[in-house]
């Protein structure tokens, strides 16, 4: 599997590598602060709330809700065959929110009410990178 020409791919850093390794294994893993007892995102060397280094990587459910989004009618370079596509903020059930695409559903506002339950699905875009995307919960789409 190779990425469509020109699509930007993430380049993991020492801080973020465990996140991308999780994605590669099709498991969404986030950092959890053992002092705050809460997850956070994006990856950091300490908890952004209390600055504790007592943090560890844990799998999360991959479930959440659609919070806000646009349906892009114009493509970023490499996304010419994807328009229209939804760039969304999904709020994970564990608390943190992240940017993603909503897939497995026709890209129309009426199909994408805010609060829609969604679940993670991984798209293998290179030998090392799998991107977490989200589909309506229970849609049964296989990545």
């Amino acid at each position, binding site marked *: 599997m190779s990425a469509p020409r020109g*699509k*930007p*791919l*993430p*380049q*993991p*850093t020492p801080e*973020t590598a465990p996140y*991308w390794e999780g994605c590669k294994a099709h498991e969404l893993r986030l950092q959890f602060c053992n002092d705050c007892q809460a997850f956070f995102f*994006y990856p950091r060397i300490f908890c952004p709330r209390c600055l504790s280094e007592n943090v560890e990587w844990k799998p999360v459910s991959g479930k959440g809700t659609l*919070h*806000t*989004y*646009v*349906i*892009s*009618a*114009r*493509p*970023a370079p*490499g*996304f010419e065959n*994807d328009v*229209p*596509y939804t*760039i*969304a*903020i999904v709020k994970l059930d564990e608390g943190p*929110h*992240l*940017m*993603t*695409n909503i897939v497995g559903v026709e890209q129309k*506002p009426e199909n994408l009410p*805010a*609060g829609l339950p969604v679940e993670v699905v991984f798209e293998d*875009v290179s030998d090392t990178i799998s*991107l977490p*995307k989200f589909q309506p919960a229970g849609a049964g789409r296989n990545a």
Partner: protein
Amino acid sequence: MAWDLRKKVAIIGAAETDTVGAIPNITQLGLHGQAARNAIKDAGIDKSQIDGLACAGESVVAVADYLDIQPRYVDGTSVGGSSFMIHVAHAVAALEAGYCNYVLITHGESGRSRVGRGGFGGGAATLGGQFEAPWGILGPPNTFTIPIVAHMTKYGTTEEQLASVAVATRQWATKNPRAMMRDPITIEDVLNSRLIAWPVHLLECCLVTDGGGALILTTADRARDFAKPPIYILGTGEGAENMMISTMHDFTESLAFNRAATRAFQQAGIERSDVDHLMLYDAFAHTPLYGLEALGFVKPGESGPWFAAMNSAPGGTLPINTNGGGLSYTHTGMYGMFALQESVRQLRGEAAAQVPDVKISVAHGPAGFFAASGTVIMTNQA
């Protein structure tokens, strides 16, 4: 207890580049230079008096070198389009403390022609490269706009209400010969214009232009010696929140906006009802909604109906974006300088679409999408 900085510092020079729009024959650095030269002429100041320099988008040293001035105060704060409001805030403190005597603030951007302009964006290992770029962000049109649906969901803000911001702003642009877009438009025109990133249409997106502007500030006691009446700084504020749009804390409001606006009004010691004229940086139709709410002119969620009632348009209760805004006048990329310029013109009584009896004007805007913010409150009353 904070120092009372009200009216301690004034704008004595304010000017834009000779033209705005398409300027293919001048580099970005040259636009800084031309705007600076025009502001120096406007103030009637000798260039050798200028001992402070601030700019964004180019190195402050590069601009000093281009103008052949030797500053002893430099401010390279470059957080995005409202960096200039923040430069004003910092200049007030520096001037009042005697750290320098005359501060020149410059903006120049070859946003359209891209002459002598460096690259934009970070690499694949940056946070944005990892956690936003892979999902197809194109830049402002499909990124800055992501929060809108959260505002619609929480408050019932409608597409028609968003469109009304573009309509009201265009009404002002019809009165400004320098504006790029001057034909009146209707709500239907906006909603029928090309979809860019639902819920945003082409006419709800800012222009992409070339141009620049510059300001010169000094202490109030020195300000009376120059060509134009001083425009006093009443209050300033700044704030920073999130590096990426996806790390906003609450997509229905900007914490950076709130912080900048609150501090500026506290410092100025005025009521919202004292404000005669308002510039709300309009990169897209929604940014004035967020701005109006952050500044406290309406309660959270009330901005949509407020704009739909044409309160910001000519003849409305609070004139907003009277130059035609980023939506219809000009938008180089970092538009904040043009918001400040229009506030100064209104307070001097020399605006193309002059509002009668403007005594207090506020310029407020975002920087780096909703990453940061700056607010400046100005008056022509000594």
